């Protein structure tokens, strides 16, 4: 089997000629990415599957002189064509012909997680079964004899506790033995109910000659009987019309087959595991059941959730804010140092480096610690299994906006940064709900928006600053809910999304997995700060500096002055409007621009803006279009039309809110 890698057309994961390709397949929550991380470490490359918004992870490792390329397939419960992830997973195994497929299952949920194996065994690739989370299974009172399971299945079975690094060596050895043909590989294939065997044979006879290369005809026949959309379309094209008509008749007459086929797979699984699994005694309650009594309780669970979220934010800011302030101070020193170093250089060059580069892109970088702490804490919550409970508890509330609990998780990420929040919307199955989540995400106040609020509210409102800041956050979230309700009722109408979600067993987090998660977020953030934010910071600086070098005479100021008639409605002078405009680059720019245009903020700002105007300004800054990195991400995840809708909508909302707050505030103050 080792020679098979020669004529392979791997698109993204181009392996060296002598490299063996291992593919990791598995259901969600089985610890597949932990195994991937232990195998590949920092060699991994995270990107997208070609033309898809589904994450692709590829990595390498070398063992005993042999190079391996590891491709991590998206986690899927089955291999129907229902979702993009499932299509990618099965097409990879069929078309790219990996040398070995490692199917990862959760020992604690063996029956359910073997379902994917029942599907994959029919595909033309040798399979190793990785029996992960042996420790979690024991914690829940389940014991598995892996040798008995191996004898029943006829394929290599390796028990693992990947989170502790146990069993990895044995897994590699099993892959090696299998790929060199030294293993007596005789898989016991799942069968289907007698009631459907005849019709399956008939479909097989009809399609046999026209099956596309690499696709096993018996698998195609089974999938046609299941009503698989992708293969139905494919075979309709390939088959002569009269044959297709017959296939269609069969398929139409057995519309119920999908449930029976799934049932037969589970019967096969029951036969395979009967001798190998010792279940806990009746009445014995596992750790998960104990914890969930409280953690999923509508009242106590919500109390715990609020306490957990409070703790997350407290920890993030208690640890992160001093670090941010320290980095900010460091940046000031760096600016001074650059200025002295370039003494005698053209004034514009010094200004470009200190104000444009260090003050713009550098300022954004100081928020990295806050972000990383936030993502580390959320990563821990995710890896223990608690995040699924968060989705469960918030489902009721999210329903009012036509969303379900899963949308809460990406929105929660948004408090760190809106970019991962929009990427995180990928976990939502339906297009409509994903789009709705993406449209709402920019209304979550990210760390950068919060930084602006933290700096400006004390200047405007003195002792009342804390209350005003709280009010602004609550107000943003109310606008989010209101917009969600409106979009759901009137624009993105559609049926309620089906809420179907596994609640994984609780387990201890794996710090390598979390470390890599934080690392990948950090790299993505640094890349953005170094490219797009740096570039646009320089452009904005050019507009704020030229033609004369005086910011109040610059092109930017001219634009602001041109917009001044709009500002009258909100009581805002052109400087404030300009600050809002530059916040499009990075939210922190609001402060930078105000200080360029006004000088000393503490003394000038309170006189330049009335309290009503100040409040309108802060509200607008909270609701204004997100920064350019977020807009670019929205574009990447949706399309130009929805990006324009998002930007237009937020411009309109923030303008209306600004006018209302000012006009009402005028009456009060």
């Amino acid at each position, binding site marked *: 089997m080792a020679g098979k890698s020669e004529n392979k057309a791997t698109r993204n994961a181009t392996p060296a000629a002598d490299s063996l390709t291992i593919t990791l397949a598995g259901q969600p929550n089985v610890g597949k990415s932990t195994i991937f991380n232990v195998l590949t470490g920092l060699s991994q490359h995270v990107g997208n599957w070609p033309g898809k918004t589904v994450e692709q992870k590829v990595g390498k490792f070398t063992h005993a002189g042999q190079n391996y390329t590891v491709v991590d397939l998206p986690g899927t*419960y*089955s291999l*129907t064509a*229902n979702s993009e992830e499932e299509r990618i997973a099965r097409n990879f195994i069929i078309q790219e012909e990996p040398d070995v497929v490692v199917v990862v299952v959760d020992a*604690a*949920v*063996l*029956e*359910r997680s073997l*379902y994917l194996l029942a599907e994959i065994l029919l595909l033309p690739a040798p399979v190793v079964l990785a029996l992960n989370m042996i420790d979690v299974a024991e914690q829940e009172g*389940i014991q598995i004899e892996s040798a008995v399971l191996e004898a029943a299945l006829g394929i290599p079975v390796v028990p693992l506790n990947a989170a502790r690094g146990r069993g990895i060596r044995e897994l590699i050895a099993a892959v090696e033995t299998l790929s060199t043909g030294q293993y007596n590989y005789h898989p016991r294939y799942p069968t289907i109910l007698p009631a459907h065997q005849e019709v399956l044979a008939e479909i097989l006879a009809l399609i046999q000659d026209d099956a596309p290369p690499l696709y096993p005809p018996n698998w195609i026949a089974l999938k046609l009987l*299941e*009503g698989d959309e992708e293969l139905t379309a494919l075979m309709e094209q390939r088959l002569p019309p009269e044959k297709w008509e017959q296939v269609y008749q069969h398929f139409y007459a057995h519309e119920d087959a*999908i*449930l*029976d086929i*799934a*049932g037969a797979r*589970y019967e096969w699984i029951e036969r395979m595991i009967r001798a190998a699994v010792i279940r806990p005694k009746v009445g014995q309650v596992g750790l*998960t*059941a104990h914890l*969930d009594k409280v953690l*999923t309780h*509508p009242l106590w669970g919500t109390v715990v959730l609020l306490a957990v979220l409070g703790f997350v934010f407290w920890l993030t800011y208690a640890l992160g804010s001093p670090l941010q302030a320290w980095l900010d101070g460091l940046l000031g020193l760096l600016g001074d140092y650059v200025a002295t170093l370039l003494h005698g250089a053209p004034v514009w060059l010094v200004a470009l480096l200190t104000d444009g580069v260090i003050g713009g892109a550098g300022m954004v970088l100081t928020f990295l610690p806050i972000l990383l702490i936030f993502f580390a804490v959320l990563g821990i919550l995710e890896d223990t299994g608690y995040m*699924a409970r968060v*989705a*469960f508890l918030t*489902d*009721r509330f999210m*329903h009012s906006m036509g969303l*379900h*609990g899963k949308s809460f998780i990406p929105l929660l990420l948004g408090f760190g940064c809106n970019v991962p929040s929009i990427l995180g919307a990928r976990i939502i199955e339906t297009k409509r709900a994903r789009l709705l989540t993406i449209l709402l995400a920019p209304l979550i106040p990210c760390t950068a928006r919060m930084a602006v609020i933290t700096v400006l509210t004390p200047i405007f409102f003195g002792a009342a600053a804390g209350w005003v800041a709280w009010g602004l956050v609550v107000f943003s979230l109310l606008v989010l809910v209101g917009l969600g309700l409106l979009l759901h009722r009137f624009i993105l109408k559609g049926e*309620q999304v*089906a*809420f*179907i*979600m*596994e*609640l994984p*067993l609780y387990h201890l987090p794996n710090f390598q997995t979390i470390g890599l998660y934080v690392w990948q977020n950090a790299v993505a953030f640094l890349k953005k700060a170094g490219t797009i934010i740096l570039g646009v910071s320089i452009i904005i600086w050019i507009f704020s500096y030229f033609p004369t070098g005086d910011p109040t005479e610059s092109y930017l100021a001219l634009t602001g002055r041109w917009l001044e008639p709009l500002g009258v409605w909100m009581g805002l002078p052109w400087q404030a409007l300009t600050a809002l405009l530059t916040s499009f680059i990075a939210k922190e720019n609001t402060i930078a621009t105000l200080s360029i245009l006004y000088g000393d903020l503490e003394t000038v700002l309170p006189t330049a803006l009335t309290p009503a105007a100040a409040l309108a300004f802060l509200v607008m800054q909270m609701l204004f279009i997100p920064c350019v990195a977020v807009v670019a991400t929205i574009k990447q995840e949706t399309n130009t039309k929805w990006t324009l809708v998002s930007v237009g909508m937020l411009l309109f909302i923030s303008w209306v809110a600004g006018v209302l707050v000012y006009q009402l505030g005028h009456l009060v103050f």
Partner: protein
Amino acid sequence: MIELITLQSGEQGLVRALHGGRHFIGRLAALGFTPGAQLTMVRNDSFGPVIIAVRGSQVALGRGQAQRVLITRPSNGQGS
């Protein structure tokens, strides 16, 4: 046959049928909701989603989805 949603927390049932489109049936079948499968209602709080234990795993379902799973109670003489 009764709807899954009618089970109280702690009660058990056997899956008989699923109502819905191919997509819905395919997803639930993969999670183990196939005819004959035994399940337990772990949590049903009369509003909001429910939690079902099926084939060794726990699955949260919206109430609408739980209405489309038809079950029978374990044989006690009565029922269908």
